[in-house]
């Protein structure tokens, strides 16, 4: 038998499609495109009428207008996206995060068109997409979850009955939810009754599914997640953790790795658990297992699994030197990853700051035209940006305009570099939360590393 012939043509290499349609926008569309281009893959962008001038559209090899600004008419419009794929001859679809990334039906349609879906199987997406089902599945394989409801909570009275069993405070969540939307904490029956109705209407509106679950709320906790990678040969590996405790409105503002609150023993247990969670659904590709770590007891519980590339994936890339998007491409086509899974040695410390177009005090949205945009640069500094000078930040999408990622030999150096980089980042036009990040980096609690999910609310009461 002759040896396989390798040519330099991307489409001829195992694991590398000839072209990819990126079904997303902004910074993540640009970030995925960067790796695709490096791998010799033709990049096809899709955009709404509101995004025609953004850098990711101009930089793509081909760009297709898929509809008006509202997401349901464009980035959530599966028909328009699949039509764009067919018209441009795309061989693969990368969904980024958000929008259709965790939509099992969309993933299946991509596969049915004969295209490569750069993500986990529709089955894995479906199993993990419903938080109640995911909780129950994790319990079945011996993974700890917070005390909570194992089936959808029917009404406010049912919620109160659950809470009396679980104990207050409790967290109300949309079973199909994400991004912190619809999550409310209740300290007693009255708050729960009121919060339940709000959560239900938001769940219906944002996720098209009113199912609600209730979980015991851990008052002082760190939000720590594990990056996993399901390899083409069926193995699942863990690539370290990320601490995402700095949040406002249950949405992440800053992430770092390693977590200053996770010791070697806890890390080992969390990584092993995350691998088991991935194995339970035969996971392939990049995924994230989110956990809460109780600050008092250092015990952790499973929160949810995100079956896609995570916003904060760059911090893992900075300490491991692994391009996670490249691995997604390789795994999706059944190829081996580009590194030795047995000898990953994270090095140093990385921190990501999410730059949002919102005022730095009340965190209210601040869309507008960008008149000046100057990114920081230097040793250990990476900026994943979705915008540039002359672009308009519109109210149609989330407020993330860029991610500032820094790497240092240790946490102290990473924080120093972050402080300097934040100071050099200039965005004029919309208000941004850069001034908040300066405050966060300088506050004693965050700087000490000994912080929890309430650090931002203490900084901005």
């Amino acid at each position: 038998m002759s040896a396989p012939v390798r040519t330099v043509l991307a489409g001829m290499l195992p694991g590398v499609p000839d072209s990819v349609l990126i079904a997303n926008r902004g910074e993540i569309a640009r970030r995925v495109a960067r790796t695709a281009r490096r791998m010799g893959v033709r990049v096809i962008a899709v955009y709404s009428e509101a995004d025609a001038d953004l850098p990711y559209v101009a930089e793509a090899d081909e760009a297709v207008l898929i509809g008006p600004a509202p997401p349901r008419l464009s980035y959530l419009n599966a028909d328009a996206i699949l039509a764009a794929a067919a018209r441009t001859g795309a061989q693969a679809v990368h969904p980024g995060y958000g929008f259709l990334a965790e939509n099992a039906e969309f993933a299946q349609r991509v596969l049915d068109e004969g295209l490569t879906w750069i993500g986990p199987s529709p089955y894995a997406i479906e199993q993990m997409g419903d938080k109640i089902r995911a909780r129950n599945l994790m319990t079945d394989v011996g993974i700890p979850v917070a005390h909570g409801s194992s089936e959808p909570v029917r009404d406010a009275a049912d919620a109160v009955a659950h809470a009396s069993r679980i104990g207050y405070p409790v967290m109300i969540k949309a079973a199909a939810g994400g991004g912190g939307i619809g999550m409310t904490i209740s300290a007693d029956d009255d708050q729960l009754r009121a919060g339940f109705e709000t959560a239900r209407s938001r769940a219906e509106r944002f996720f098209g599914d009113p199912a609600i679950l209730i979980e015991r709320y851990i008052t002082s906790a760190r939000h720590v997640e594990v990056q996993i990678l399901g390899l083409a040969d069926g193995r699942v590996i863990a690539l370290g953790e990320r601490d995402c405790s700095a949040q406002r409105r249950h949405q992440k503002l800053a992430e770092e790795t390693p977590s200053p609150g996770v010791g070697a023993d806890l890390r080992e247990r969390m990584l092993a658990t995350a691998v088991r969670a991935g194995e339970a659904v035969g996971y392939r590709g990049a995924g994230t297992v989110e956990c809460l770590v109780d600050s008092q007891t250092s015990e952790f519980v499973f929160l949810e699994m995100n079956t896609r590339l995570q916003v904060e994936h760059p911090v893992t890339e900075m300490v491991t030197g692994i391009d996670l998007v490249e691995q997604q491409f390789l795994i999706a086509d059944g190829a081996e990853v580009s590194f030795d899974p047995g000898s990953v040695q994270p090095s140093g410390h990385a921190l990501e700051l999410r730059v949002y177009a919102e005022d730095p005090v009340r965190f209210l949205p601040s869309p507008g035209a960008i008149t000046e945009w100057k990114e920081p640069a230097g040793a250990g500094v990476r900026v994943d940006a979705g915008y540039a000078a002359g672009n308009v930040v519109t109210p149609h999408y989330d407020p993330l305009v860029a991610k500032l990622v820094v790497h240092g030999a240790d946490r102290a150096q990473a924080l120093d570099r972050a402080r300097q980089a934040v100071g050099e980042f200039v965005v004029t036009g919309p208000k941004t939360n850069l001034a908040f990040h300066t405050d966060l980096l300088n506050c004693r609690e965050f700087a000490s590393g000994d912080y929890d999910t309430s650090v931002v609310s203490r900084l901005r009461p």
Partner: protein
Amino acid sequence: MTEIRAEMVANVWKVVAAEGDTVADGDTLVILESMKMEIPVLAEGAGSISRMAVSEGDVIQEGDLIAIIE
């Protein structure tokens, strides 16, 4: 008379109060949506709504009139 104006570009998601309604200080008049966030617009002072200048689905700009309370 109090003019309630928009603080940012936003979509009008829900109009909660109507012309002629009597409102108290802090009552929700409309709920805006911008960047995947709901932003309630509240009455600044008690009175009756003499004008509701927006409808659900409108896109409003910073400084646009939302309602007048007298």
